[in-house]
């Protein structure tokens, strides 16, 4: 798994690449959310469009990120969840707590609303 971060205005765009599978790699994602809050970046968009495989461990880290950001008064939204990842969000009902988008600009604009 590979992680890319870039600022889009005041929104931190985090893109994950490859397999999001259990293990130490996942802690890196958790750390990214924690560091974002430490640095005052409370609007985060997580792009899952390049994730080829993900299981419940990946969902757990995303939930952790949501909690971290929410407690800091921020928000985490999801961009480009593949059909299979979207299915996991539906099965686990996490779809009810995350805003999901397929258009980056629309997702970025949503933080300003």
């Amino acid at each position: 798994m590979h992680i890319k971060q870039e600022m889009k205005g005041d929104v931190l765009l985090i893109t994950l690449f490859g397999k999001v599978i259990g293990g130490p790699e996942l802690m890196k994602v958790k750390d990214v959310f924690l560091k974002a809050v430490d640095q005052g970046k409370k609007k985060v968009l997580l792009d899952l469009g390049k994730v080829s495989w993900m299981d419940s461990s990946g969902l757990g880290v995303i939930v952790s990120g949501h909690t971290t950001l929410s407690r800091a008064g921020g928000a985490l939204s999801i961009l480009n969840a593949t059909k299979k990842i979207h299915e996991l969000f539906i099965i686990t009902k996490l779809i009810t707590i995350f805003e999901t988008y397929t258009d980056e600009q629309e997702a970025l604009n949503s933080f300003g609303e």
Partner: protein
Amino acid sequence: MIVRPIEIRLPSEISVLEPLQLIIEAIGRSAEVEEDDLSLLSVAVVELAKNAMEHGNKNDPEKMVTISFNFFPNRIRFMIDDEGSWEPEKALGFKPGEGKELLLTRGRGVLIARNLAKWVEFGLTPEGKTRVTLIWPLT
């Protein structure tokens, strides 16, 4: 086509999950599971293997998880055995998709496996160890 089960034995280590994912997809491919469904099959089996490592084997790398599989004309049967005798209802007796438990960071594995595979059942091996049986229908 019914053959004797083929077994894979894995130590209870997170590092085996990625190879396991590839093996399960290869098994699915050989049974002509649709290409689009292979990753769903591997997610379901990997989730159950992780549970076996954690709840059955307490993540002790000396303890093994055994995954055996059979091909039948219209389904694949996977059996995931660990070395413990844990009670799934106690270990998994919460509903990660409900109420305040929606925001738990863990505990969604069986929920996901059950939804993807349609048939997941907990039981015991003849030796009294925990066994999970997963049936993957073939279309």
